[in-house]
């Protein structure tokens, strides 16, 4: 029996090693190890063996089975791997082909700047206020210390609906609206983004554009606070290394008034074409709220002080995104809009 077992083992291993398919392997498994397989058949003759030989042969038979099984498992694993490999090889894609076009839309650059500014100022504790675009002369001018015949009205070419009603030339009108609505409460911390209108249309002016007005009124507000707050804003908006500088200026509704420059975001102050080699870019107007404006809003300038500022949204968008022609903003060419 020993010899028979040895023969079976050799025959089985040879057959398995020569196998070319998983099916053939399975057939061999049945042939040698199955219920009616060769090994089983031989072992049926175990009863004829002596009591001493039986355990020895039994153990040998188990060893033969284990050996066949080992080869079988190994061959099976090899073949499965080969099959999978072939399948993978046949499934190769050109991964450099473009992906499926999921239509993704865009926000207008003006919206992007306003949203970013809102986020920054909300982080600094500001609320967002709104006001009408068709505005009374009172809120747009008179309450802002700009009576009729004031020479500074020349600074803005106004669209009139009638002598008492204008298209707002600035978001500053929201200052007095807000103060009235707050009814004396402190602090007032609001920004107001929105459309404004001026009778001007050329390469650098659009008859409709956007501003973000800011107003902070509280006890003991100082110009140094304005300086610090605007620095925070500009660093968030234009980068951490941005510096700002203040220049004296004039707005009827602030005193003192300032023009704020930021260090050029292209050359970082070295001087380039964008900043006309000055290293600085004019970015916004600001100042300490004029006592007459505080009074118009129902606040006592002896008790409180405040500052206000006005940002040009188009200007910021042009600087941030490298837009060199203002008119692109309102043409709505999809080749422009898709880039945002």
């Amino acid at each position, binding site marked *: 029996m020993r010899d028979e077992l040895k023969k079976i083992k050799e025959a089985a291993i040879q057959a398995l090693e020569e196998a070319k398919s998983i099916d053939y392997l399975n057939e061999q498994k049945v042939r040698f190890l199955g219920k009616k397989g060769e090994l089983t058949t031989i072992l049926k003759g175990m009863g004829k063996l002596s009591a001493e030989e039986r355990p020895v042969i039994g153990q040998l038979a188990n060893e033969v089975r284990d050996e066949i099984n080992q080869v079988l498992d190994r061959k099976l694993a090899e073949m499965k791997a080969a099959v999978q490999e072939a399948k993978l090889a046949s499934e190769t894609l050109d991964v450099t082909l473009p992906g499926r*076009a999921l*239509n*993704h*839309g*865009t*926000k*207008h650059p*003006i*919206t992007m700047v306003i949203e970013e500014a809102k986020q920054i100022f*909300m982080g600094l*504790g*500001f609320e*967002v206020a*709104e006001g*009408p*675009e*068709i505005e*009374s002369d009172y809120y747009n001018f008179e309450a802002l210390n700009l009576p009729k015949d004031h*020479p500074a009205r020349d*600074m803005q070419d106004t669209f*009139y*609906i*009638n002598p008492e*009603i204008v*298209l707002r030339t600035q978001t500053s009108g929201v200052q007095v609206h807000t103060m009235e609505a707050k009814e004396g409460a402190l*602090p007032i911390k609001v920004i107001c983004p929105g*459309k404004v209108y001026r*009778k001007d249309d050329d390469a650098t002016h659009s*008859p*409709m554009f956007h501003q973000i007005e800011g107003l902070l009124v*509280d006890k*003991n*507000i*100082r*110009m*140094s*606070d304005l*300086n*610090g*707050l605007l*620095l*925070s804003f500009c660093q968030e908006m234009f980068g951490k290394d941005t510096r700002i*500088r*203040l*220049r*004296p*200026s*004039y707005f009827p509704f602030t*005193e*003192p*008034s*300032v023009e704020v420059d930021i260090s050029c975001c292209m050359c970082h102050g070295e001087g380039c074409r964008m900043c006309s080699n000055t290293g600085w870019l004019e970015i916004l107007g600001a100042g300490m709220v004029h*006592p007459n404006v505080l009074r118009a809003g129902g606040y006592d300038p002896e008790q409180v002080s405040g500052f206000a500022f006005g940002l040009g949204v188009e200007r910021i968008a042009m600087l941030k995104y490298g837009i060199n022609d203002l008119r692109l*903003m309102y*043409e*709505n*060419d*999809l*080749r422009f*809009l898709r880039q945002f």
Partner: protein
Amino acid sequence: MQVSYNWLKEYVDIDLTADELAEVMTRAGVAVEHVIPTNKGVSGVVAALVLDKTPVPDTHLNLCHVTTDGENNIQVVCGAANVDAGQKIPFAMVGAELPGGLKIKKAKLRGVESNGMICSSKELGIDPEQIPPEQKEGILVLPEDTVLGTPITEIMGLDDYILELDLTPNRSDCLSVLNIAQEIGVLLGKEVRLPQPEFTADNDDVNQLMTVEIAAPELCHRYAGKMIRGVKIQPSPFWLQHRLQCAGMRPINNIVDVTNYVMMEYGQPLHAFDYHELADHKINVRKAAADEEIVTLDSQKRTLTDEMLLICDGARAVAVAGVMGGENTEVTNQTTDVFIESAYFNATSVRRTSTKLGLRSEASIRFEKGINLDTVLTAAERAAQLMQLTGGGVVVGGAIDNYPTKHEPVTITLQLAKVNNLLGTDITDARIKEILESLNFHILQDNGTAITVEVPGYRPDCSIPEDLIEEVARVYGYDAIPQTLPYGASSRGSLTAAQKIRDNLIQSLAGMGLHEVMNYSFINKNNDEKLNYPEGDIRRNSIPIMNPLSEEQGHMRTSIVPGLLNTVLFNHNRRNEDVAIFELGKIFLLEGELTPQTLANEKWTLGIALKGKTTQTWSHSGIAYDFYYLKGIVEELLADLKIADISFVPCKDNSIYHPGRAAYLYLNGQQAGVFGEIHPAIADNYGLEDRVYVAELDVDTIIAVGTGAIQLKPLPKFPASTRDMAVVVSEAVAAADLEKAIWAAGSELLDDVKIFDVYQGGQIASGSKSIAFALTFQADRTLTVEEVNVEYDKIFGALAQQFNATMRM
């Protein structure tokens, strides 16, 4: 305002270059926008005398000898026809440079040696405006008294710089060269030398020769006059012409030039009358009669209103006060005796008059900002001095000074502590006072904690303590203001619900593949016709702009649609064929009368427009936009906002839309928008050939309905049963009605209803359609087949009964 750098140096010692000075001034609030050198690149050119001139045979050239020192002769060839012996001319020596980088070298012209070049004004880069007409051709001939060897840059003012100021409206004091000089004096810490009017006068008294009456003292606060006799009218000396040119003014003759020069110097506009043309030698300052006429210096006949102020002589109007003189009393070449007017006219009155007449002059610009009452007479005296200097003659003794209401100087009391409180700085009281004194705000009282100062007459912009604080700050330096953050009660930054929803709409639409656009709020009124609005429609009642830029932008929009359609067309014309855009903005509706108290109804509106298809790639063709794509966007937007009660009603009565392909949107029973395919006739009106799908959503209504709260429904623990039900109904039956009936008939076991197929065609009777629903049943247990069958039959029974539905086999 433009000013010569060298002129400023006459009053104050400036040890900075023009560019450095510009920076200092700009940082202190007098912005210098440009610094323009008058020298365009000239060096090595000096005044020389032409000694002789011999024609070079067979050429147009002349051989000349010139001398730059009276001793050495230089041979030079000159091509200009006007060159002549005895002339003094600008001579470019060998080694000289001219504008454009031209270098003068020793040369041979037609075989004749030439050691330099005689220059024309053009070759020297001099602005042709500055050259008298007779000097424009050929070489420039210099005045006879020119000293030989003097650099031409000095003679022609080419060693100067023009400072172009960009003045803010409050700093109209800097419309005066003297005041700019005072400002520079403060900034540089230098003394300022004011001119001292000195002249020889006779013993007569101008008050015997002229009378001045002010009939409208509320508009003419002061009227001063001086007189000069026997003056010669001639061109002004070159230095005076040069300074006027730097200031942007054209020299005319010495008398007119002096009035302009003194106006620039003091900021006080003057007028020179020919004394003998003034009827009765009398001036009356009065208001004009309505429709009174005057011919001004520019030969235009002007019709006046009774609000305007006139200067009249004994017989007629001779000038519009502060705006422009009359032709009738103009100084001419025959004039010998001149009456100089120096007056203060009310700023608002001059402003209104110049606006109404459309006449803005250097004079009116100054009057309307308010001039210095204190120097009205001084300026007249300065003019007399300069007229005598440039035209000879004798100044008449005495002066007219009609000053009905004496100007009370403005005083301001400043609490010294307020300076640092408002600025956040640490400036000493001594420094504050020093700065104010240097700016000529003289301290009248000082009690240690507060000072009272007198405002100089040339600073009408200063009237409150904050004005003084600004003066202190700008001289102290804005750079020195620290950067702090406000302290005090902290506040919460937040958005209102409405603001959040608007932001959310933009976010959702961009996420769905649409591009945000922005159109002007103005539209052309002709859109009313292009959109075929019915008569009486509120959208026809658009608000007109009184002074629009153009008819194209004449009215405020009452609909978001025209902008969208024009944007679609604009892109179509640029081969952007597939368009998916939206705009969130206001439309302006007029409900009743527009008054400051009742303004327009500004409605936030969301517009969407689709044309073409989604993006196509190598692997997938694009999906064509259609009504249902647009409706899907609208539904998705509302789902995003968790708004539950939504319904759609066919829209057949809106002129913009296809009557069979448009729907109204209702939220909680309120109409909140309309959308659909644009009516082909309307598309045609906008030049659009393709189908365009548009939505107009009323954002304010969406906001009023508000966002629903998210309330999680527990996930089912037991499997659901789904059954399909395909029914055939008349094609007139609306799917939404079937769905509603299904929900009504189903019990609480019915969990979901979805339409998965709609069919019309050969397999069913014509005039009918098949709609297939997937019905999902769900309960807190596993449903039996019998239970579901009962539900199914009940639902079908309802459809059969209500809609005559049959089961599709």
